[in-house]
């Protein structure tokens, strides 16, 4: 039995004539301790898929099983890192993390909770900023707070919805390493949604492309056989890496082209030519 299992998931939005099927026939198995990345174009239904797994949405058809039990609503066992940080702007960094910790461990004393908060804020190296509000922080720092908040609840599985999508390349690289470090410590199961193939290859054990929606479905999986810890600069020369990377990109390009050719309906533009001003006034 897999740790997380998605069986024949369909998800539609709207009703009647306006009904659109965003996800169809999604099957996915993730084993305990695995790091899986799902790569897809923007608008292909990635966030919908994530929300089905974390329990914010329910599938129209099919079932999501977590440790053999169907997912019903959200749970502290599955920590979520959102794409747009989703920090509460009226709380400080510490308070944002504290709120999550307090919900996750309602029985602990205030002192213990504060210790946990301090530990996790330290882990993402934000201790000097613990009393600042999110708007005083840079994008990278905000996402670190979100990481600390998700991890401080000690979830058994971390679900990341394009966590680094809004960051610049340098910050992105640093945060990838930080997340991997933290993940490496206790090897929790992790699911990363991303639109960056390199990021997926660098971080995950397996990459599964999501064919773009509507009717998005998962493509064939690509195994990443690279030793951990991985080194970015070395990786670029690794033949195995190059091969996998090219294969994935080719696959994504192909389905992109496929979609274009499927789109047979052509828009006919009216024939327009510039007005002949010169002759008009002769």
């Amino acid at each position: 039995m897999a740790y997380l299992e998605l069986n024949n998931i369909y998800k539609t939005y709207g009703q009647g004539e306006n009904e659109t099927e965003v996800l169809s026939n999604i099957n996915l198995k993730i084993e305990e301790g695995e790091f899986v990345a799902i790569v897809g174009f923007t608008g292909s239904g990635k966030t919908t898929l994530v929300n089905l797994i974390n329990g914010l949405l329910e599938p129209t058809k099919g079932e999501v099983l977590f440790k053999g039990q169907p997912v019903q609503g959200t749970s502290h066992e599955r920590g979520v890192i959102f794409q747009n940080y989703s920090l509460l702007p009226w709380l400080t960094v510490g308070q944002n993390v504290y709120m999550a910790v307090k919900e996750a461990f309602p029985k602990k004393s205030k002192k213990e909770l504060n210790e946990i908060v301090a530990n996790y804020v330290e882990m993402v190296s934000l201790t000097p900023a613990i009393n600042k509000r999110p708007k005083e922080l840079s994008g990278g720092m905000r996402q670190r707070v979100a990481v600390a908040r998700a991890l401080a609840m000690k979830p058994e599985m971390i679900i990341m919805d394009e966590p680094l999508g809004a960051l610049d390349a340098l910050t992105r690289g640093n945060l990838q390493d930080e997340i991997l470090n933290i993940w490496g410590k206790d090897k929790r199961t992790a699911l990363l949604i991303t639109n960056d193939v390199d990021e997926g290859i660098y971080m995950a054990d397996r990459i599964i492309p999501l064919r773009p929606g509507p009717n998005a479905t998962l493509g064939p999986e690509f195994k990443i056989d690279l030793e951990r810890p991985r080194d970015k600069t070395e990786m670029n020369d690794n033949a195995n890496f190059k091969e996998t990377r090219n294969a994935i990109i080719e696959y994504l390009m192909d389905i992109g082209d496929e979609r274009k050719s499927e789109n047979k309906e052509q828009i006919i533009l009216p024939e327009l030519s510039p007005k002949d001003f010169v002759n008009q006034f002769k």
Partner: protein
Amino acid sequence: MKQSITLGKVTKFIGLGFLSTIKDLFTGKLEKQDFINFLRKIVVPLASILLFIGLWHMGAKTLYNIEADFKIEKALTDQGPAAADALRTCIASGESSCQPNTLPSPSQVWDSYKSLLRDHNIIAADKAAFIEKTAALNETRIADGLDAITYTGRPSFVDQIFRSLKTVFAGFLLALFIAVPLGIFIGLSPTLKSAFNWFIQIFKPVSPVVWYLLVFMIVKTLLIDSNEDSSFTISFISVGLCSMWATLVNTAMGVSSVDKDYINVAKVLKLGNFQKIFKVVLPSSLPLIFTGLKITLSVAWMVLIAIELLAQSPGLGLFVWEEFQNGANDSNAKIIVAMFVIGIIGFLLDRLMLTIQNWVSFDKTDAI
């Protein structure tokens, strides 16, 4: 140095940022940009105030002449040239009995303001003397289980201002305690929203006068056995009911339009309903609630005058009405004094709310 930084911050915080220019003037840190700011923020408003007073003075003078000419003309046709001459000399001498009754000039208004203050000082002294005189007697009366003797003299202008402020704050608090909780419930539940929507839409545009009459009908019956003066109760309830709509609508809107991301956070953290409302929904709708409260307070102050006038509840509204009925020589000037006092207090109340708002709410535009 630190002192001056905080001063600058404080003035900006309460929305009087232009005052920092004056501070720069004294600390000698004036640069060219500061000079332009100084011109724009201090000199230009001062010049426009002077211009306003000048125009007012000329306008008042013109109206005065029209009224005086008409009076003399009338005396000439009705009573003959002797009476007209007498009236002309009477007006020119400044004798108060024959002055034309029209828009008062700025200097008359200023004189009335001073006379109102003098009046207040006299009444205050009178009151203090009365309290001193009755202190011993009141002690024995209270010991015997009787009511203390209170000062029942005429309230001064300043007393009226405080009485009006009391009414407006009582009304504002009533609006706050009705509109904010109700707004939260309406915002949270679409069912309640459709249940209350007609109610809000119909009663929101009702005029203060009608609210007063409605409250009067109800309170009069409820307090039928009481000997107390119900005018204060009636007027503050009317003020509250008139002004609460902005807060009600804004609270409901703020609560129902909380960012979906925050709601998702609340769900993922599995916050309970109570926690969700107090830790996520309310803080995020606080800016809108405060905008509503600000409108409520200014509306309350605006309708207060009309309602006090109707309810015969002591205060600025009644003061204006009584002066108008009084028709004394300086009544018009006193009405204008009241007008300025009402305006300035309204402005200060608005600033007060703005300060509280800045203090309690985060900046929504910067927040992600």
